[in-house]
């Protein structure tokens, strides 16, 4: 956004971003293409792309702007169909936002989503020969803006594709909340007959180093595999060597920017996909095998009024009480084995919140516990404050779930029942791999 002053001058000159303009300042005339003002930087500086390709910011004070020529409208290529190859499986790709499949207008640096199969194949030649692809864009938003209502739309669209005979479904998704969506779909898509693979990119698609094409190619290999589960396919290491297929309820983004940000927590990934060899290597065998005859049961009911709260020293009981005015269910990411401040020793400085939690539960608001350590299992039997939580009716003893997964599950469970006893039963019963019986040894 330019300042009002610049906007006015541009309006008078009849110039818009993309047009060729001249700027005369202190007797010197500069010609170039008017660029849009990014949200960063000085709004009183006009940004012009010079003939050598460089952009420069020019202070607008004492500058005169004239239009040289209007921009030629960019020729838009209509999306076309791609011929089907016989003998290849059919995979549906659904675009749920994120930058994995975006195109860049190199002139102004703006990013647009790729919207058709031919655009997709043109951008990712590596997909050729792996399967026949069908593509559809559901939303164009950054995953940080994704809400539970989006998960329901995605689940319904995936079900449609599967009913139409897809051998696998790929979801292109922003990475910020990919783990949440993966968990939601794991609960909503019961008895999956085919693989549902979520994939994203940690590096934007404009650069040669983007991880998008490797992740997508590996996702395509996963989507035609035998693993009929909801999974996340992302880089397994910082190298461009292999991707890992993480279980949808056990996967978490554990780094803000690295390619291998996604890890399976308290579980092993299903498989490893070698990019160069285009080969899938199983790391587990306890997954639902692909069976196109199995009938998918779509169950997308949700109650989005669930909050996920981090337990921390100094946590205020008043805050915990207030949660009851906003939410119908709470997940606490507790310290250690799943603890909240209870002050069993009557310390003078400690401020317990256990009574506030008891109050919530008494009001009929279920409170579930998950470990903020991410790794490990809730155990409310070892320390006094654990026992106090358990006695208060906190849900989740012995659960090795991720806080986010527990939150998504509580939304899903509350979409079906509000009866406290049933909520507790359903929550503590493994539905989609979110709770395991054994804490497996991981390196």
């Amino acid at each position, binding site marked *: 956004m330019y300042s009002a002053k610049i906007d006015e001058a541009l309006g008078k000159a009849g110039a818009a971003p993309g047009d060729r303009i001249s700027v005369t300042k202190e007797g010197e005339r500069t010609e170039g293409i008017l660029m849009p003002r990014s949200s960063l930087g000085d709004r009183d500086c006009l940004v012009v792309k010079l003939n050598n390709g460089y952009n420069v910011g020019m202070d607008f004070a004492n500058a005169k702007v004239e239009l040289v020529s209007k921009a030629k409208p960019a020729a838009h290529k209509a999306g076309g169909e791609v011929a089907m190859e016989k003998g290849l499986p059919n995979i549906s790709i659904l675009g749920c936002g994120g930058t994995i499949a975006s195109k860049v207008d190199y002139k102004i640096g703006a990013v647009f989503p790729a919207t058709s199969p031919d655009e997709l194949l043109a951008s990712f030649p590596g997909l050729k020969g792996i399967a026949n692809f069908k593509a559809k864009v559901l939303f164009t938003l950054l995953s940080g803006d994704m809400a539970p209502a989006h998960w329901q739309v995605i689940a319904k669209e995936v079900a449609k594709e599967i009913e139409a005979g897809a051998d696998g479904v790929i979801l292109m998704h922003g990475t910020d909340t990919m783990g949440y969506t993966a968990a939601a779909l794991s609960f909503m898509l019961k008895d999956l007959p085919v693989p549902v693979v979520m994939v994203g990119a940690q590096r934007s698609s404009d650069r040669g180093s983007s991880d998008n094409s490797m992740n997508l190619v590996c996702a395509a290999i996963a989507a035609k595999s035998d693993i009929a589960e909801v999974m996340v396919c992302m880089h397994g290491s*910082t190298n*461009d060597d292999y991707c890992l297929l993480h279980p949808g309820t056990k996967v978490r983004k554990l780094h803000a920017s690295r390619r291998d940000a996604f890890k399976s927590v308290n579980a092993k990934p299903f498989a490893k996909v070698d990019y160069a060899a285009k080969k899938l290597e199983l790391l587990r065998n306890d997954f639902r095998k692909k069976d196109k005859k199995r009938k998918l049961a779509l169950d997308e009911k949700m109650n989005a009024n669930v909050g996920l709260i981090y337990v921390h020293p100094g946590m205020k009981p008043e805050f915990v009480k207030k949660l009851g005015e906003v939410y119908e269910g709470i997940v606490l990411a507790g310290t250690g084995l799943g603890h909240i401040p209870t002050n069993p020793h009557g310390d003078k400085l400690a401020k317990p919140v256990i009574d506030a939690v008891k109050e919530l539960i008494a009001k009929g608001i279920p409170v579930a516990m998950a470990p903020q350590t991410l790794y490990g299992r809730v155990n409310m039997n070892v320390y006094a404050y654990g026992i106090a939580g358990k006695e208060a009716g906190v849900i989740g003893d012995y659960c090795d779930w991720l806080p986010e997964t527990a939150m998504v599950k509580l939304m899903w469970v509350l979409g079906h029942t509000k009866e406290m006893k049933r909520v507790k039963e359903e929550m503590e019963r493994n539905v989609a791999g979110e709770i395991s019986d054994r804490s497996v040894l991981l390196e």
Partner: protein
Amino acid sequence: MKCGIEIHQRLDSLKLFCRCPSVIHEDKGQGEVVRRLHPVASELGEVDIAAQFEYLKGKEYHYHTYDESTCLMETDEEPPHPLNNNALAIALEIALMLNSKPVDELQIMRKTVVDGSNTSGFQRTSLLARGGFVETSKGKVGIQGICLEEESSGIVSGEEAGKVYYKLDRLGIPLVEIATAPDMVDAEHVKETAEKIGAILRATGKVLRGIGTIRQDVNVSVEGGARVEIKGAQELAALPKIVEAEVKRQEKLIAIREELKERKAKLGDAKLVDVSGIFSKTQAKIVRKTLDGGGAVVAVKLNGYAGILGTELYPNRRFGTEMSDYAKSAASVGGVIHSDEDLKKYSFSDEETSAVKKKLGVSESDAFVMVAAKKDIAERALIAAFARAKDATGNLHEEVRKVLPDGVSTAYMRPMPGAARLYPETDIAPVRITKEMIAEARKKLPEMPEVKLAKLKKTLSEELAEKMMKSRNLQLFEKLVGMGIEPSLAATTLEETVVSLRREGVAVEDIREEKIVELFGEFAKGGFAKAAVPEVLKLLAKKPKAKVSALVAEGGLAKLSGKELEAAVEKELASVPDKKKAVGAVMAKLRLRADPEEVIGIIRKKA
């Protein structure tokens, strides 16, 4: 002839977009990251993703990482940190010294690079200042622009089996790029201008020194030729020769064009013919290996081109070599084989050669080119070679070339990049360059080299002053003088002693700059005598990491003074019968351990 230069100079500061130190290492580091590149809009602006995909397929870039000087930024695992303000301040000083006008707001751009030298797939660069000039003996040379950008990774070795190795320590070091107008009038003028700009850069005292820290590219075009950018000139002295060679190359290409016009030779579409069958029993090793590996030999006829491919552009580099370079850059092939070469050197039999000629319909006046590789690769390479041959009848190519190991001749690298490869770096906020920043830079401006030279001449001999002014050690010299070291001692040590020690085979290159500073610090404290400086340097070259004081003690070079020296002098005097020769005789014994003035003083006192 029109000629301009581009000077790239590394700045002495932390890296441009992370806070790693700009330290280069000799070893292979502590880790390795392996990446591939994916097709993006090409440097020409046109996006031929399919072709790029084929080219990049299977290529691996291996990057050595260094705990000391690489972080997640260099490995392309983290968005950039804000621009390093200190580097910006240095670059501003340089711009002002070159009379260039800083922009109001710095816009960081991404310049697409697909050779793996940047882990991100682009180089971050920004236009800092426009216009300006530098004075030379042949008039003012204009400055077109000054960019502040990040340095690329250093290549360790060329491509081998699809793998390219780079070192990441160099990536991200701040670099200024100074582009002059094509104002240079002859090859010598190019060298002078580069020297002038180099001296200005060194005068700031804030640029990195040592091998590779400054690079100069040249742009050359002759009347009727094309603008060609030459990268990788190792030293200034080579510039005139490179320029002359390029002028000759362009003239030769023009002559080839005229010759082809004369012959009325014109190529139509490339008709590629698979001639693998002819070589089923061949003795030629390369072809044998290719065919055994399931590859093919593909050939194409060049109508009326006999003798053209053998025309020498440089000693040992013919037009055919040029075609080969194009083939190599289009596909992973070793090169091409053509009819103007001595085909016996590949061990082709006469029968094979004539069979190829027959199959292609090559007559006396025609030429042919062959490539042996996987069939699709061979075809792509051959099409590129053919296109280069075809273009010989038209305008000369605008292109980027690299200097070959002989230091003079060049080879095709890539087409001249267009403006389209630059697009905004959206992860970094633009930087407003305020009046205050410019005023601050102006306050810090160092003396212009001419002024500095005049001052040097006051404390050093004319010759040594000139030497010092051009020397990479100028900054170090100034630092030593700042420590109170006598200018002539500092200059002689850096410019003469070190050089003669190297000639004697002493590994002085292993001595790091901070050790020289430590050495003079020790000297200033009175740790050893002036005459012992070369001896200490020798010891240091053997143990570059040892403490100087320890080496001095170990080598028995600790300076004698006071009572100790008096005792030593007395002892020596006792064995000198002729008192007139006393000073000489004593100094001969104690030369390395005592200052002559002190010895003379003691002897006088005794007398």
